[in-house]
């Protein structure tokens, strides 16, 4: 055992022995948006899943403004050492950090803490679509990238757009040739798909739970690394069909950069312990998320690596110079 890992182990043991260190007396989860959205749900997972981890229940607060940029900037300026507060993020936030939308601060100005769960991208068409399977759609992309009208709820450069761009790239087509229609939210985009305004919807697996079984839409592929659990196990991944496209929507939490190590570790341990509980599983499932359980420095490193990869993808797609 090296000195470093021994020290880490000692830290963990210490933190486990002294749960809820003195500094965390009013735990708070900041949802950087208005109530009711995805960040709200992410915070509710922490609130319900970590019930009892601290002396007081986690309070959910809202800090909307500028697609999450306002919260990100505040935790980089005035609340960098707030041990009580964790802030919800999603892959969309990571993409915004990667493309520089959050201003001068980067991923190295915060500490990523833990994941809440994951959702995966999905390629969805209307039930009567001429594209029988993903192969047929990809052939069309290959022959003429502009021949298919793709749409989703996010703007150009958002993760919804990115899913389409990555699909095109996997068959060697130029993402900038894609005919992409930016709707105002997933609901409008699904309406557009059902009404025939768009032919392909690059949405998420989770939101499709509401539509499975009514026969109005078909999922051609999920953009997950491997087959998902039921009820989504019937859908092939793009990877197994031979197209190297993957889009995991990670949902999780970050903290300010100057939070004391012991407090950061106490939070990380609280998450690591909660992942094993039935209450956490229920909280996560009721919010439509699939398991993705990472916490502490390991998670921080993985997310920072992921942002680096996103930056490369964004550069390839022409989003940043």
């Amino acid at each position, binding site marked *: 055992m090296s000195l470093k890992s021994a020290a880490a182990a000692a830290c963990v043991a210490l933190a486990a022995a002294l749960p809820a260190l003195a500094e965390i007396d009013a735990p708070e989860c900041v949802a950087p948006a208005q109530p009711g959205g995805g960040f709200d749900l992410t915070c509710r997972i922490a609130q319900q899943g970590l019930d009892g981890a601290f002396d007081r229940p986690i309070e959910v607060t809202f800090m909307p403004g500028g697609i999450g940029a306002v919260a990100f900037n505040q935790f980089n300026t005035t609340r960098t050492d707030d041990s009580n507060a964790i802030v919800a993020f999603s892959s969309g936030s990571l993409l915004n950090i990667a493309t520089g939308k959050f201003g001068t601060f980067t991923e190295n100005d915060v500490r990523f803490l833990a994941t809440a769960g994951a959702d995966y991208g999905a390629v969805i068409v209307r039930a009567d679509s001429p594209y029988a399977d993903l192969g047929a759609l990809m052939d069309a992309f290959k022959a003429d990238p502009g021949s298919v009208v793709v749409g989703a709820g996010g703007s150009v*450069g958002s993760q919804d757009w990115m899913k389409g761009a990555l699909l095109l790239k996997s068959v060697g087509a130029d993402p900038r040739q894609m*005919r992409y229609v930016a709707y105002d939210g997933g609901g409008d985009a699904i309406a557009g798909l059902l009404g025939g305004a768009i032919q392909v919807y690059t949405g998420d697996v989770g939101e499709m739970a509401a539509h499975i079984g*009514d026969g109005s839409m078909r999922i051609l592929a999920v953009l997950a690394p491997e087959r998902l659990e039921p009820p989504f196990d019937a859908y092939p991944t793009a990877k197994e069909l031979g197209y190297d496209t993957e889009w995991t929507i990670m949902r999780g939490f970050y903290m300010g950069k100057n939070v004391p190590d012991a407090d950061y570790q106490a939070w990380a341990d609280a998450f690591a312990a909660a992942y094993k509980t039935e209450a956490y599983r229920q909280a996560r499932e009721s919010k439509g998320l699939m398991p993705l359980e990472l916490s502490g420095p390991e998670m921080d490193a993985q997310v920072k690596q992921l942002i680096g990869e996103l930056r490369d993808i964004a550069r390839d797609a022409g989003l940043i110079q």
Partner: protein
Amino acid sequence: METVLSGLATGFAVALTPLNILLVLFGCFSGTLIGALPGIGPINGVAILLPIAYGLGLPPESALILLAGIYYGAEYGGRISSILLNVPGDAGAVMTTLDGHPMALKGEAGRALSLSAVASFVGGTLAVIGLSLFGPLLAKFAVTFSPADYVALMVFAFASLASLVGRNGIKTLLGAVIGLMLATMGIDANTGVPRYTFGIPDLLAGIDFLVVVIGLFGMAELLHLVEQQVSGRLRTLPVDRSFLRRADLLRTRWTILRCSVIGFFIGILPGTGASVASAVAYGTEKRLAGKSGDSFGTGDLRGLAAPEAANNAAAGGALVPMLTLGIPGSGTTAILLGALLMFNVQPGPLMFTQRPEIAWGLIASMYLGNVALLIINLPLVGLFARMLTLPQHYLTPLIAMLAFVGVYSIVGNPFDLYLIILLGIFGWVLRKLDFSLAPVILGFVLGSLFENNLRRALSISAGDWGILIEDWKSIALYGLAVLVVILPAWAGRRSARAAADAVED
């Protein structure tokens, strides 16, 4: 028809249980209050009460009945502060200020409140009837509305609002342009490029509609009041005991019916809601009124009834795609959809067969809720109207406080409070220059819908403008737009000629 009747029977069996009746009443009453407070509207009323409804351990149908009650109750209550204070209680009540507040100034606040309550009741009830009879059918039609059709709808909306161009054409147009400019701020969805954000992260998502409404309308009104008070020109209003008369109802009955239908259809369309519905209804009614429409904006009964019938009908209409297809058509219905998912209920066509107690229970509760709202609201008219007799030096700071708390409770960002003050000063200056503020708000709402859908349509067609006139729905809407501009002029000339003939006789 039979399925509708048996469905309604199931629904009323659910809605008429004591618990659910109580929840309908509570939801409608608190919804009215939430709507009446400037700044707090249906969307945050529902969002705030959602965790409470969940925490109480209510069965899903009861929770939904409560939340929906708050939703349409708030749409009902929005008119109160529009009429009394000239500050829209929520986004859908902007047009209600135009004729509602002048009535209050004339000492007819009670009449305005009671007439608008009846208009709201008719709009809300017709929407529920439409929802129960033709829900699934209408939803299927609504999703076929392509971006190109929305462009045509916006052209129609602009055409019907051309009637707002009154004495001061240039200033109205300038106001609309200011609204359009405000709407362009934030990240452009079609390119991902930030526009006019000046490097301020708070502006990346654009300016919230609510901030514009409260700032331009609310704060500007308060500044105006303070100015009048300082200069000693403020009139104190006498106690207002006016009430709805039978003749008022007879005079506005067609307006209310027409605007209920307009509001319901616009509400069904995903992406357009109460604010667009009330604007189109107001504009259309003013157009149809022809010469007598000149009194719109000075306290005309029809100008008050039109937007109120429309915005309540739109609230019911927005539930159609949510319940029958699982597609939220507005921000509030998106939260209601989230509430259903929290209870592991999947909205959509299957909900009516698999969970009829929820789908039909909600619909049945809305019949009860609308009646309850009318019964709650009419006796309170006198009480609300008395608010106007409060001395201004108490009322003004109270409204300011409510507006700030209301806005902060939704947007939760101090930056937006500064923005409200800035917009308020701007709005006050515009008023000093004799601008009307309604065109600014309408430019803001319709402008972004118009721009986004135009660009969506052109992305779909790869830049071919022909897509705009490809579909019969677009062409029909352009036809209506032309009619709504030409018809009043033609009717005006005919009646002038008829008058001339009559003189000759």
